[in-house]
C-alpha cells in the first residue's frame, strides 16, 4: 500500500516534469520558427532608415550610415581610408584627379594639402552609424497620408458591415436549407470565384461609367458590390456553418424559433472565430486593394486610398528605401487591427442555449 502511494507520487512528478519539458519545447520551437521566419524583416527596417545613396556604394556598411565629412575652407570634403607608408589614414579628399590626388588630414588641417599617388576611386569612404528619418519625411511630404488613412478606414468599415451581413445570410442560406437545384446555384458561386477578375474589368468599368451607373470618381464601385456578399467569403462561411452539427438548431426549431433567430442565437455564437477571420480578411483585402481604386478613383485625388497612393509613390522613387518606407506605412494599421482582434480568437467556444 505504502509502495503504491510512493509510486503514485513518483509518476505525478514525472508527469509534471514531462509537462514542463513539453511546454518548454513547444515555446522554444515557436520562438526559433519565428526568428527564422522573420529573419528578412530587419532588412526592411534597416533599409527604411538608410540615407539615400548608401545602397549605391557597394562598400558601404550594412547598418544605416552616413559618409564622414570634414569641413575645410567652407567646403564639405568626403573622408576616405587612404593607405600610406604609415598605415591607413582617414583623410579628406581635397582635389581629386585620376593618377594622384590632394588630401587634407582632418587632425592637422593647417599642414595643408598632402599629395597622394594612386587612383582615389579605388578608395573606401569612411562611414559612421547614423540612422535617418528623411525617407519617411520625404514620403509624407509627397503623399497626404492622413487623408488616405481616413478614406481607407471609412471605405473599409462601410463595406465591412455590408459584406458581413450579406455573406453570413447567404452562407446560412447555402448551408441549412433544402432548395431544389441549390447545388447548381452553389457551383455558379464557385464559378464567379474562378473567372479571372481582369477579364471583366472592361465591361464592369462600362457598367459603372457614365453610360450606365455613373459611379466613376466615387467610392460606390468599391463599396456597393460588397453589400451583395463576397463569393469567396460566402464559400468560407458556408464550409464552417455546414460543419456545425444540426442538433441544436433542430431543437430550437421545435421550440418555434424562426430561421433568423436560429442564425443569430445558435449558428453565430458557434462561429465567432470564422466570422472574425472573415472580417479580418475583408479588411485586409480592402486595405491592400490597388486595382479597383486606381481604376475608379484616379480622377478623384481627394478620395484615394492608402495602398494605391503608396504604390504610386513607390513607383515615383523606385529605390529600396522608398519601397520599404511605403511597405511599413501600409502595414501599420493592419498590424494594429490584427493584434487587437486576437481577443476573439482567444475565447473558447460558447455554446448558448436558446431562450424560450
Amino acid at each position, binding site marked *: 500500500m505504502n509502495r503504491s502511494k510512493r509510486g503514485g507520487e513518483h509518476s505525478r512528478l514525472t508527469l509534471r516534469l514531462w509537462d514542463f519539458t513539453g511546454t518548454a519545447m513547444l515555446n522554444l520551437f515557436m520562438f526559433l520558427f519565428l526568428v527564422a*521566419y522573420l529573419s528578412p524583416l530587419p532588412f526592411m527596417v534597416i533599409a527604411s532608415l538608410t540615407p539615400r545613396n548608401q545602397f549605391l556604394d557597394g562598400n558601404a556598411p550594412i547598418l544605416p550610415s552616413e559618409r564622414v565629412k570634414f569641413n575645410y575652407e567652407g567646403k564639405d570634403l568626403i573622408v576616405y581610408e587612404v593607405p600610406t607608408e604609415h598605415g591607413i589614414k582617414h583623410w579628406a579628399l581635397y582635389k581629386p584627379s585620376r593618377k594622384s590626388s590632394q588630401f587634407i588630414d582632418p587632425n592637422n588641417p593647417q599642414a595643408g594639402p598632402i599629395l597622394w599617388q594612386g587612383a582615389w576611386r579605388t578608395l573606401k569612404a569612411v562611414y559612421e552609424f547614423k540612422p535617418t528619418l528623411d525617407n519617411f519625411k520625404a514620403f509624407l511630404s509627397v503623399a497626404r497620408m492622413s487623408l488616405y488613412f481616413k478614406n481607407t478606414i471609412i471605405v473599409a468599415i462601410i463595406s465591412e458591415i455590408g459584406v458581413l451581413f450579406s455573406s453570413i445570410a447567404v452562407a446560412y442560406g447555402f448551408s441549412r436549407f433544402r432548395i431544389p437545384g441549390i447545388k447548381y446555384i452553389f457551383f455558379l458561386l464557385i464559378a464567379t470565384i474562378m473567372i479571372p477578375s481582369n477579364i471583366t474589368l472592361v465591361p464592369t468599368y462600362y457598367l459603372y461609367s457614365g453610360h450606365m451607373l455613373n459611379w466613376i470618381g466615387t467610392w460606390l464601385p468599391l463599396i456597393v458590390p460588397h453589400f451583395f456578399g463576397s463569393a469567396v467569403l460566402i464559400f468560407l462561411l458556408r464550409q464552417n456553418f455546414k460543419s456545425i452539427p444540426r442538433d441544436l438548431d433542430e431543437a430550437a426549431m421545435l421550440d418555434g424559433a424562426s430561421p433568423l433567430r436560429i442564425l443569430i442565437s445558435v449558428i453565430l455564437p458557434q462561429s465567432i472565430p*470564422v466570422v472574425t477571420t472573415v472580417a479580418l480578411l475583408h479588411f485586409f483585402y480592402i486595405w*491592400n486593394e490597388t486595382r479597383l481604386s486606381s481604376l475608379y478613383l484616379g480622377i478623384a485625388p481627394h478620395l484615394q486610398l492608402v495602398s494605391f497612393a503608396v504604390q504610386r509613390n513607390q513607383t515615383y522613387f523606385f529605390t529600396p528605401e522608398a519601397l520599404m518606407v511605403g511597405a511599413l506605412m501600409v502595414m501599420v494599421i493592419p498590424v494594429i487591427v490584427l493584434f487587437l482582434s486576437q481577443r476573439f480568437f482567444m475565447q473558447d467556444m460558447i455554446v448558448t442555449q436558446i431562450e424560450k
Partner: protein
Amino acid sequence: MDVANQSGLLLKTRPAKLTRRQHETWIGLLFLSPWLIGFVFLKALPILAALIFSLTDFQMLTPESTKFIGLENYVRFFSDIEAGASLLGSLRYFLLTVPLEMIVALVLAAIFTSERLKNKRLSQTLIFMTSIIPSTSIFFIFLGSLAYANRLIFTPLNLPSIEGNGLLLPFMALWSIGPGFLILYSAMKSVPNEMYEAARVDGAGPFARFIYITLPMISPAIFFTLVINLTGAFGGAVLLDRGYILNFSLSPMESYINHTMFLEADLGYASALAWMTFGVMMTLTIFLFWSAKRWVYFPEEHEDEQI
C-alpha cells in the same frame, strides 16, 4: 374592376397553404437573395460581355473596327505555345507552393491550439504580418536580405553564396501563409471541446486526437483553402491582394492574360485566354469537389445536397 380582377388572380395563383418543404425553399431563397440579386445586376452582364468579347477581335485601341470572328481566338489558343507554357507554369506554381504553404499552416495552427503556448497574440500577429507586405516591396526584401546573408554569413565563412532563383517561390509561399493559417486555426477553434475530452477519456494521445478528430473536423476548411489557392495560382480570386506592378503577377497565366490585355490591348484574345483558363480551373475544381465526397466531413448530410 381591374383591381378586383388582379387581386382575384393573385388569390388564385397563391397556393392555399405552402408545404413545409416549399416554405423552407422560400426562406432559403430569401437568405440567398443578396448574392443572387448582386449576381444578376452587377456580375452577370460583365461576364456575358467577356464571353462575347472572346468571339470578336476586340482591340482596345481601335474598338470601332471590332468584328465577330467566331471561335478563331480559341483556335489561336491551341497553337499558342506561350499560353500552354503559362498554363503549365501555373500548375507548377500551384504544386510547388500550395503543399508547403498548407502543411506549415496546418502545423502552426495545431501548435496554436495548445494551451501551453505563450504569447499567442504576438506570435499570431507576427506570422500574419508578412502576408500584407505589398508585392513591390517583397522582392526587395527577399533580394536585400539574401545579399545581407551572403555578406555577413556565407562570404566570411568561405561558403558559396546563395542564389535567389530557386528560393523565391518557397519564400513567397511561406510569407503568404497568413490567410490559410487564420482559416485553419479558426476552424480548429470551432471544434467542440467535448469531442477532445471524450477521446482523451478513451485514451487517445495528442497525435491520435489530431488525426482522428481535428483533421476530419476541419476538412471543410482545408478543402476551402485548396480551392482558393488553386484559383489564385491561375489568376482567379485571391484572399489577399498584395497589389502588383504593371502586368506582373506571381501566377504565370495571370501575367500572360494581363500582358495580352494591357500591353497588346488585345481584349478579344485575352478574353478567350481567360475562358480557357476558367475551363481548366473549373475542371480541376470539379475534380476536387468529386474527391471531397471521400475526405471532407460534414455532420448529418441530406442525401440530396452533398459536398
